[in-house]
């Protein structure tokens, strides 16, 4: 990390900064550029329309990126496990719905582009109030309090009709006629670009936050909260401010949710969405800033694509979560980072062969597992829905023994083979790291 900054005159400095930004942050800038053009891949030139499915999915990815990153401000950066993070997304969403309705009726002519800021402030306000209690404790007690807050707010959402609208939620209409750019926001693609803008701003701000005194002390309290006290910091206040700011960003995500779906219901504050934050963040990787971004993209893709194909997408998400927690606690980002020293030493190629040898047995296991899950699913839910299990025009009957036997053979055979292959891979990995260590010693 280059902490020091050499002063070489203002223009040179400015140019250096711009160049440095491009050099250091190119993955982010490339992602942003991709986000800007990706809806056009699904543009239908004959009808002149974007695919509604794709735009909706991309919008959701943007919202969930902010949500997961804000969750990681607690989990990864401050070491706080929250089970109630959706509360701040939801409350930000409700706040936004009311503000958009007020804008529509003309009482509060706020441009639609700025309503996410209002949602963020809503999330911040509630995070200040609820965080006051939650951050009194850390570790398990903190987790329990956030679980309680989640349940509390969910039941409030059904009780207080004026703010939460009861079970029906609060509907809104984003076409308020107030826009900074004169946009109507009728087509979802316009909302998508608004989401891209706010996601970029939020990601940048959250990244910068990690480099501030508060961000660093959050890390310090995570590593050793007692020591933090003896350098003059009250860990409780560190938790409190971190919690409040995390609520702010969750609120922005909630506002964008409201603008996308034009309705907010109690689902947005409920436990399932909080669990989703945990899932995305953990699968992506808590130890790396960009980890939750990867997790958010993956989980939304799973949710959108796999739920089209299968009733059991949650099973797959759950199994993925368990596998990650067990075998790769650093998440996907952590897995990638593990390869960094090998890549630096220019020996990544040495792992290509061992990796290739994993592919076939892993595929066998995956296919066998999916087959078992789908057979179960078609035997129960599928049957109730009157669906039949078709695989490239071949209908599979889950009440016959054949497919079950095939699945068992795939799972068992693939499993044994995979175990063997993993052993070989482990040995290859150890050899390469040993070599790097040895050359490091010599140098």
């Amino acid at each position: 990390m280059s902490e020091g900054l050499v002063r070489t005159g203002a223009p040179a400095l400015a140019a250096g900064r711009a160049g440095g930004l491009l050099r250091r942050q190119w993955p982010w800038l490339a992602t942003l550029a991709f986000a800007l053009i990706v809806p056009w891949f699904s543009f239908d030139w004959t009808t002149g329309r974007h695919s509604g499915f794709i735009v909706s999915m991309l919008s959701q990815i943007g919202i969930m990126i902010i949500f997961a990153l804000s969750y990681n401000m607690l989990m990864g950066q401050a070491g706080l496990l929250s089970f109630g993070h959706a509360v701040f997304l939801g409350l930000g969403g409700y706040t936004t719905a009311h503000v958009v309705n007020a804008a529509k009726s003309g009482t509060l002519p706020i441009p639609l582009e700025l309503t996410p800021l209002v949602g963020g402030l809503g999330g911040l306000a509630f995070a200040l109030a609820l965080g006051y209690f939650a951050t009194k404790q850390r570790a398990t007690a903190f987790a329990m309090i956030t679980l309680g807050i989640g349940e509390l707010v969910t039941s409030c959402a059904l009780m207080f009709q004026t703010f939460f609208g009861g079970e029906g939620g609060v509907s809104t209409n984003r076409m308020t006629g107030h826009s900074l750019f004169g946009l109507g926001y009728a087509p979802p693609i316009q909302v998508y670009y608004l989401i891209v803008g706010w996601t970029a701003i939020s990601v940048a701000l959250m990244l910068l936050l990690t480099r501030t005194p508060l961000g660093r002390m959050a890390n310090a309290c995570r590593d050793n909260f007692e020591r933090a006290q003896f350098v003059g910091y009250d860990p409780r206040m560190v938790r409190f401010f971190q919690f409040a700011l995390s609520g702010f960003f969750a609120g922005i995500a909630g506002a964008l949710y409201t603008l996308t779906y034009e309705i907010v219901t109690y689902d947005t504050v409920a436990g399932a969405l909080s669990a989703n934050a945990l899932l995305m963040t953990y699968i992506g990787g808590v130890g790396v800033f960009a980890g939750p971004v990867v997790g958010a993209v993956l989980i939304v893709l799973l949710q959108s694509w796999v739920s089209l194909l299968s009733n059991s997408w949650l099973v797959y998400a759950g199994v993925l979560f368990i596998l990650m927690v067990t075998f790769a606690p650093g998440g996907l980002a952590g897995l990638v980072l593990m390869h960094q020293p090998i890549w630096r030493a220019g020996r990544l190629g040495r792992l290509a062969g061992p990796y290739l040898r994993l592919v076939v047995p892993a595929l066998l296991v995956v296919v066998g597992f999916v087959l078992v899950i789908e057979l179960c699913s078609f035997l129960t839910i599928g049957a109730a829905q009157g669906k039949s299990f078709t695989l490239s025009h071949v209908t599979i009957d889950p009440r016959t023994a054949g497919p079950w036997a095939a699945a068992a053979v795939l799972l068992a055979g693939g499993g044994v083979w995979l175990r063997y292959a993993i052993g070989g891979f482990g040995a290859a990995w150890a050899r390469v790291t040993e070599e790097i260590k040895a050359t490091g010693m010599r140098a």
Partner: protein
Amino acid sequence: MTAAALRIADVQKSFGPTPVITGVSLDVTAGSRHAIIGPNGAGKTTLFNLISGRFPVTAGTIELHGRRIDGLPPHEITRRGLSRSFQVTSIFARMTVFENIRCGLLWSRGYRYSFWHLLARERELNQAADWLLSDVNLESRRDVPAGLLSYAEQRALEIGITIAGGADTILLDEPTAGMSRTEADHAVALIRRITAGKTLVMVEHDMSVVFDLADVVTVLVYGQIIASGPPGEIRTNRAVQEAYLGVGAA
């Protein structure tokens, strides 16, 4: 008589029914180097925990520069200029050595809970952290995660974090524990250098370190002070020899 930086008066501490400190009164002169010695279980570390606010006192008062500090939380005491190290190394393991030191500097430099300063741009702060880093001879390990340092390096980092905040009263809990002779000698030189002009209280088992560094030695046995005075006096004190130095038969 010079002013006491730290004044401990009739301090008692019990854990449940078990008394650990049964009445300790001690004045530490400003600018002196004060060693607390005593057999295992005498209550030395407990006394440190009471002074630094880690545990509340059961009875008695503790004053820092004439102001009561007993009953205050640790961060308040630290902000008033009393800083401590730990017997079992206590650092921020996943952060780099440089960041560990910088965390020690933040509060005293007025950054508080700021989320609007970008640390990379705070030149004076970073420079100060780098100076401290060279003070404790860890420049070459600057960007290594603290958890990966060797034991002696971690002890040096521990001292670095402790002195970073510019405290004028410093409590070091067994700074040379577990070190080889050479490492301990380095540590003593380091402690001597960085505590110049400050008040130092340290718990130490290594007698050569104690007699080398301390102006005053206090002997704590079973939660009570049995002797306190210049090293030469303590060395020849009969009660101390019997109770602690293990030459009771002589």
